[in-house]
């Protein structure tokens, strides 16, 4: 039987899961989540600073560059607990930007940028383009050489999360007709290069990025030999962390629904006693447990050649199925209240759709898995 991955759990993961569980519960009650939806920035800078102080932004950054020298496996419990509390802040974006540099950056880029990211300076990645293709290596943005060693960029990026506050954006481009990665400092973006997008998950801050005329130094290219590896790594890392956020959200969404089923009375009975509601909720719970097992296998096996990709794609596909089902039923089982903006079910449902749309949904990953497994 083919190795599809296995569960492992480090002491660091355990410690981070513990701390993150409490921290996210304290700092992100749903009243705060709703307040921040109305806020332009979209997150609380004081909480973001605290996350930096906890060391969460440097978890997967090597010690030589100011991080803890752990891996994405240790970021997973943090993101899971953030997702559980619908917590907001550019942690996933900054972690992905750091991963781009850790895997594919030049020595100078690592030295200059990684310590800043570990301290809590936000950054992000710009991978998606207006063809809205999930394949990481279909790139049409260009980096063209000009005289004097400069590069001028052309093209559009979309769904660039947290670009509004990112001090660096790592973008995929074509350079000499091959995919490459370029590190764009905030200062290189002209006025109006970013346009905030209206997205289904209102807790997110997402931007379209116009690269036309953006000029960077040739030194801002990441290691050209590692570009393909870096793109694949980012694709899988983004799906791993997306799955983590989704699994946390699935758990909270089921808890939220169960609370309602235990308190709402109709026809003289608590509605949770009706099997028409109870059994689908159990189904949602079973799918959640399965998806969470996939998540922690993917976290543990992420770095393993072959197995890591299988485990991550399974985790994202399972998370999509579990979160979509749980949040869809959450709306329905809240009855008339479920149809209102005040019911939290919509927050979960919207976030589930957001994650499915970013970096590949269940059917995309299952098609990939078919190629890997058959």
């Amino acid at each position, binding site marked *: 039987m083919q190795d599809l991955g296995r569960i492992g759990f480090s002491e660091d993961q355990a410690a981070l899961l513990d701390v993150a569980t409490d921290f996210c519960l304290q700092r992100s009650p749903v009243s705060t989540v709703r307040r921040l939806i109305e806020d332009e920035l979209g997150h609380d800078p004081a909480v973001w600073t605290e996350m930096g102080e906890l060391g969460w932004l440097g978890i997967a950054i090597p010690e030589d560059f100011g991080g803890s020298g752990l891996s994405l496996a240790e970021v997973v419990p943090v993101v899971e607990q953030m997702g559980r509390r619908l917590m907001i802040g550019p942690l996933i974006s900054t972690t992905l930007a750091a991963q781009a540099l850790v895997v594919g950056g030049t020595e100078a880029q690592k030295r200059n940028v990684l310590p800043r990211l570990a301290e809590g300076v936000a950054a992000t990645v710009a991978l998606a383009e207006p063809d809205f293709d999930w394949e990481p290596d279909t790139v049409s943005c260009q980096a063209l050489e000009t005289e004097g060693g400069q590069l001028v960029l052309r093209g559009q990026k979309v769904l660039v999360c947290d670009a509004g506050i990112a001090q660096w954006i790592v973008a995929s481009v074509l350079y000499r007709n091959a995919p490459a990665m370029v590190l764009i400092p905030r200062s290189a973006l002209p006025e109006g290069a970013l346009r905030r997008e209206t997205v289904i998950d209102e807790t997110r801050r997402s931007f379209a990025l116009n690269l036309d005329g953006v000029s960077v130094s040739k030194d801002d290219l990441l290691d050209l030999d590692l570009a393909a590896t870096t793109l694949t790594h980012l694709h899988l890392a983004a799906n791993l962390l997306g799955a983590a956020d989704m699994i946390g959200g699935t758990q909270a969404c089921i808890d939220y629904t169960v609370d309602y*089923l235990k308190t709402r009375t109709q026809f003289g009975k608590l509605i949770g006693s009706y099997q028409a509601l109870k059994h689908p909720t159990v189904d949602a719970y079973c799918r959640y447990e399965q998806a969470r097992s996939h998540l922690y296998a993917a976290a543990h096996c992420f770095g393993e050649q072959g197995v890591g990709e299988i485990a991550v794609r399974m985790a994202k596909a399972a998370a999509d199925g579990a979160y979509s089902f749980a949040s869809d039923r959450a709306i329905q089982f809240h009855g008339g209240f479920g149809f209102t903006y005040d019911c939290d079910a919509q927050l979960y449902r919207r976030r589930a759709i957001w994650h499915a749309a970013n970096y590949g949904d269940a059917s995309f990953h299952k098609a990939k898995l078919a190629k890997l497994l058959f």
Partner: protein
Amino acid sequence: MQTVDPKDLAAFEADADAWFKENVVRDPGFMLPLTFMEVGTDQQFHFLRDWQNKVYDAGYLGAAWPKAYGGGGLPQDFQNAATRAMRRHHGPIMLNAIGLNWTGPLLLDMGSEAHKMAHLKGILSAEDIWCQGFSEPGNGSDLGNAQTRAVRDGDHYVINGSKIWTTLGRYAKYMILLARTDTDTPKKYDGLSFFLAPMKIPGVETNPIRKLTGEHGFTQTFFTDARIPATGLMGVEGGGWKVAMRTLEFERGARGGQAGGYVAVGSNAFDVLDLAKRMTRSGKPVLDDPAVADQMVDFLMEIQAMNLNGQRTQVPNLIADHPQGIPLASKLMGTEMSRRLNEFAIRLTGARGAYYVGEAAAVDQGIWARAYLNSFSATIGGGTSQIQANIVGEHVLGLPKS
């Protein structure tokens, strides 16, 4: 807890591996049952009884049960290694399932010294076949309402009533029996008692029941003034419900201590993948159909999730919110998946899905159709999936009782 030297364990597993390689008979010339609930002929019964006895004699069954009761006295890891070797060489199933997996661990957990001495060795050797008398014709899922009567008379209890779905009922020497010793308790559960009851005595009759597959697998058992020794009472009179619930935990795999081996060779998703690779549709491999491929991946993900669920229960931090969640839900998840998987397998065979066991042109001798029909034994027996969903909803999620 005994410590395990990895070298000893590896040597044990290598020996087990060689033994199963040498001794497994894959094709005895007749179709072997895939589960202990499918033993329908004497030929199958005797073959499997001899096989279990042979495995036990070799030290690969009950390896982790105490020596004093006929076990091997080794740490659980050794039995797990033996079971792995058995599986690798596709050994036939262990016959005495109710003894090995339910009665045995129950006796080890709650039984008296006399019960352990009397019964455990016979369970392992398959000399004493066990069956279970819980469900009744009128009370399946509503187990607490069992009506079979047990009335004390001196050193005996007199049993009257009927039990149904008695797997291995024709062959069993003993039954774990849930019967009502008091009809007058405020709560119906408090009137129940739990017995280790002999079957080969006057007043006990077994009638075979024909399953949906057309085969015989279990019986209805009738008790007419059957006198069973009072020494067979487990625990106290009126305390049977607690013992029965503990038995169900063993039955559903929510609690460990089973003798080892396996009592069903479920076709898993990888076997179905192999099947899919052999099948064509409209002149192309069936897996070229993206809808079929998507479903196939779903099954592979599901079986992987169940493996991982088992591993995750070993990590307390990762099950902190619902420590009993995965154990209590595993029967529901596993049996329902198996049912859907076998149904999917039939569909993969296309027009030949119309054939059944006995037709030479059937794919894989028709095992997929038979496995699908038999899969309902697991989604219904031991508490239906709907009862399981109630249990998970109420005991794990805390939802109000239905």
